[in-house]
């Protein structure tokens, strides 16, 4: 019962909102270039599905690639930190500097460095920077959270660094890492879109470009259609990571971990 409710309640609320929206637009005769009704958005989506979906695919590809690079790099660094305190002390602050710098502020610089012809690379780099930190922070925390008794258990049997890392620290940190990844996948998408905006028209053809283009032409229905695709993409990516998390942690999550 409550399981179905958790699906039905939000869907129902959403459907009611859509219907309200539709009627408000029709009743108040709001013009299409201010606020299109949901039905207009859907027809625009069907009309433009070729550009929109190919743009969504471009955005998705960069998002996934940035997410993958960011996660791998972050996990690698967290492992490195766990092996050497000096490395951690030296590098962590740099990671924090990247984290607190607004991506928009460094975008022009990156664009100049990689060249405007390679805007896609610039977008990838920017999205990676945005997505990187949550995984690093969580992986680092996870590895540090290993219970003292567990470390002592490993010491008792003379475990070496490598055994400790692979049989204790990494598995222990896994739920933390996955939590970081759930934040990071969303940030990766946001980073990609923001970077696409900054990179500007003509250089990239992701969803942000479709939004700019539709806005310039006052095609608000198409703008909304692109926006909706973006939201769907975000939800899909989040669910994907959640699903992977569930698969991996199926047997041993929550209660048993702390």
């Amino acid at each position: 019962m409550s399981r179905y409710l958790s699906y039905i309640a939000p869907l129902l609320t959403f459907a009611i909102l859509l219907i309200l929206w539709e009627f408000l637009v029709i009743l108040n005769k709001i013009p299409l270039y201010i606020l299109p009704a949901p039905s207009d958005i859907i027809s625009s989506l069907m009309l433009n599905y070729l550009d929109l979906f190919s743009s969504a695919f471009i955005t998705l590809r960069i998002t996934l690639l940035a997410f993958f690079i960011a996660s791998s790099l972050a996990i690698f660094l967290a492992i490195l930190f766990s092996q050497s305190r000096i490395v951690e002390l030296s590098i962590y602050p740099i990671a924090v500097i990247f984290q607190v710098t607004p991506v928009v502020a460094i975008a022009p610089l990156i664009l100049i460095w990689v060249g405007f012809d390679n805007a896609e690379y610039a977008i990838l780099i920017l999205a990676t920077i945005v997505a990187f930190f949550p995984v690093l922070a969580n992986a680092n925390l996870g590895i540090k959270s290993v219970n003292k008794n567990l470390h002592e258990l490993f010491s008792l049997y003379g475990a070496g660094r490598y055994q400790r890392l692979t049989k204790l620290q990494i598995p222990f940190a896994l739920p933390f890492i996955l939590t970081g990844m759930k934040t990071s996948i969303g940030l990766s998408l946001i980073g990609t879109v923001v970077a696409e905006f900054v990179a500007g028209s003509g250089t990239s053809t992701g969803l942000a470009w479709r939004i700019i283009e539709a806005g310039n032409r006052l095609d608000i229905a198409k703008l909304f259609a692109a926006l909706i695709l973006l939201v769907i993409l975000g939800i899909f990516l989040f669910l994907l990571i959640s699903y992977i998390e569930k698969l991996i942690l199926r047997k041993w999550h929550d209660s048993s971990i702390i």
Partner: protein
Amino acid sequence: MLILKDIIKNYEVPVLGPIDVEIKSKSFVSIIGASGSGKSTFLRLASGLISQSSGSISYKNNIKPKMGFVFQDSTLLPWRNVIDNVLLPSELTKQNNSESIEKSINWLERVGLKGKENSFPNELSGGQKMRVSIARAMVQGGDLLLLDEPFSALDEVTRRKLEDDLLEIWETNNITVLFVTHSVTQAVYLSQRVIVLSSGPGIILEDLAIEKNLKDDFEETSEFISQVRHLTNILKKEGREL
């Protein structure tokens, strides 16, 4: 088995010692004392997990015995099923083979967990986890078993069962047991010898050889009751002096 000589352990403040004690091979020794008196520290020192600030620890024939350690919480790895948890010591010491698998299965059977080999820790009760932990400590065939308040989180019935299981394991395997507990009755019931630590820094207040003539119904005897009373009085007096 184990001789501790003038052992002192300090962290920021002194927490234990000086302690002078010899643990005889194949004996069952309990350590009791108030919270913070240094009981866990004592076990960690004896196992070599931490090193003393001063004094010396020597082992029989100068060979560090194989040890099993049962921590207060069962310290199972939640991502491993029961059999893989029990196999961990063999894996870490690179002795993982069909023999160790067989031994693990045997030990799980001995602690009453036959059929649970493939369960994960979060599918087990507290008592079952503790049994896995004991099996894991035993599977390497250790000579010295150290237990840090292993049964304190368990219900009375399970605890009694595990106590008797532990006694049986001790008797049939010719091992030495160092057992930390809060419970005076448990210490007297289980051990041949009870060491009482003062509140921190812990020193030995009393070192009592337990007399038990008949084994069954030991708890009903006046010997049992008077020894429990004796130790309880020592702890109470120590508590008052704080």
